[in-house]
């Protein structure tokens, strides 16, 4: 029989906090190494200017990846985020001549609504998330191209709030960066300290168990897809504000970048483990890598692809190891 001490110790070592710290460990270590290497090799890397650049450039993907994190925590996946981002940006740009408010509400609202459609198809029609969001990705991209006749739509200069969202500064910090950190802070608190957050983990852990424990699993899943749509929509309007235009082809491939960021951060695609803190690390890590590629400036684009793929694989393998070691303690 186990003595009283043993289970307590075992509990200590495998408690979710220790595991997730180690999971994140892989990405954090990689991030630190990348930053040190970067500042040693490139004079421009460790300047406030460059670091703010990295943050600003990745803030929109960061928002998308945050929505993806919620979805993945429930054990789902959202391939439509890139297309929803484009829909949002295009609508915002088209509505911008009627003022910022309408532009923002229209853009984010449309993306959220499409997120809800994803959620309904998944929970009501019982179609697998991969398929639903794949179809939504195709359809929403088509819609964005159709309403714009395949052209970019310039945002009206009247929509000052839209432009401010994309290009404004709060003190020295760009507005998108502020939004980015704010969103992650709220998400972190939500995931850790609110019922909604805990239920997201519960559903991802075992939907069946969550249901039998009396949690409204379907509504939660629906909410995460809506949230993912809303955050993609927010990223879309920020991007439209930043570029001064709504592009029907914006965000192409971002779904994979977002998934990569989430996974590199240490959130498991099987659901129930990970979180906002992990994703922010993942986003920054991938962002820094791109930044280093650019600062180097002489790596051919295809070698960049090879390096990115290998790097992604490497981080994930290391993480898997750490995680298993954490478990077997």
């Amino acid at each position, binding site marked *: 029989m186990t003595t009283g001490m043993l289970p307590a110790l075992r509990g200590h070592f495998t408690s979710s906090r220790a595991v997730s710290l180690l999971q994140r460990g892989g990405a954090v270590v990689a991030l630190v190494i990348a930053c040190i290497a970067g*500042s040693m090799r490139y004079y421009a890397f460790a300047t406030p200017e460059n670091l703010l650049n990295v943050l600003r*450039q990745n803030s929109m993907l960061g928002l998308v990846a945050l929505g993806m994190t919620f979805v993945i925590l429930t054990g789902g996946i959202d391939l439509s985020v890139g297309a929803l981002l484009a829909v949002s940006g295009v609508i915002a740009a088209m509505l911008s001549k009627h003022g910022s408010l309408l532009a923002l509400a229209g853009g984010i609202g449309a993306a959220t609504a499409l997120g809800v459609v994803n959620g309904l198809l998944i929970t009501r029609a019982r179609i697998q998330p991969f398929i639903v969001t794949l179809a939504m990705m195709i359809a929403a991209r088509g819609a964005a191209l159709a309403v714009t006749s395949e052209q970019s739509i310039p945002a009206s200069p009247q929509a000052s709030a839209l432009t401010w969202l*994309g290009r404004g500064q709060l003190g020295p910090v760009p507005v998108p960066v502020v939004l980015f950190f704010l969103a992650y802070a709220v998400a972190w608190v939500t995931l850790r300290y609110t019922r909604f957050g805990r239920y997201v983990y519960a559903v991802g852990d075992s939907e069946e168990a969550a249901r039998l424990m009396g949690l409204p699993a379907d509504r939660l899943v629906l909410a995460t897809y809506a949230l993912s749509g809303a955050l993609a929509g927010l990223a879309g309007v920020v991007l439209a504000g930043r*570029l001064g235009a709504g592009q029907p082809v914006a965000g192409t491939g971002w779904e994979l970048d977002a998934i990569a960021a989430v996974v590199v951060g240490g959130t498991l695609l099987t659901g129930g483990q990970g979180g906002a803190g992990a994703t922010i690390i993942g986003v920054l890590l991938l962002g820094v890598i791109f930044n280093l590629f650019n600062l180097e400036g002489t790596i051919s684009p295809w070698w960049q692809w090879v390096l990115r793929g290998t790097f992604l694989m490497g981080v994930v393998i290391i993480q898997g190891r750490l995680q298993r070691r954490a478990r077997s303690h």
Partner: protein
Amino acid sequence: AKRDATQFVVGFSQMESDNPWRLAETKSLKDEAAKRGIQLVVTDAQGQTAKQVADVEDLIARHVNVILLAPREFEGLAPALAAAKAANIPVILVDRAAAGTAGTDYVTLLASNFVEQGRRAGEWLAAQTNGKADIVELSGTPGASVAADRGQGFRDEIARHPDMKIVATQTGDFSRAKAQGVMQNLAQSLGRKITAVYAHNDEMALGAVQALVAAGFKPGVDVRVVSVDGERAALEAIDRGELGATVESNPRFGPLAFDTIEKMRKGEKLPPKILITDRFFEKSNAKQFIGEAY
């Protein structure tokens, strides 16, 4: 690491690198930079405006001396231009325009005239078919401005010939494989009705030619194919008689770009727009240029 302040560095923000034309453009710039002993730093935006803006910001952070920018599209690069301006780094636009004014937002534009390319293709086709043709248009990637411009110029031209009709427009994504499939399907549905094909680039034209041959057409005899770019495979196809003609879209911006940089450094006044010359290749001259084509 410390910055070597004496080194003159040029940054080049390429918008994508997935087709021979873009590769030739990058290569031309690299070769010219090497020839002149100037360091060239290249970034690749992978076809995304957002990434291109980020790339320019990174080049600024790296404190390059001049930025050559091959814009992903007209709209959307304003923040990049503004940031460069704020950092006092001159920007020269390469091959396409971007929203802004020469002299204030950027130094000058070294332009390809995509609309003109489309127009010249239309002109040749009109001459070949005596102003009477049923045309299949294979358009470029949806949402790409080159596609829009080349389509526009072509339409403007054939509008002057009442008997020239576009019977189908489908996208071939600037890709040989995609265009080949699309052309196969159109050959099925429209059959012998097709007498001409206009493709927005050579790659699609080459795919279309293969599809047409497979469907029993004789390109050059019963169907005329014209496209834009002037890549080597296209010139060879013209020489074989499969492809009718191609309007050059000269990717060799290297000499022009670095000449312009030199002039700028010397403080010479630059015009707002410098056009690169595009040649026209058809059966009569294709062979002689194959050697130097990309």
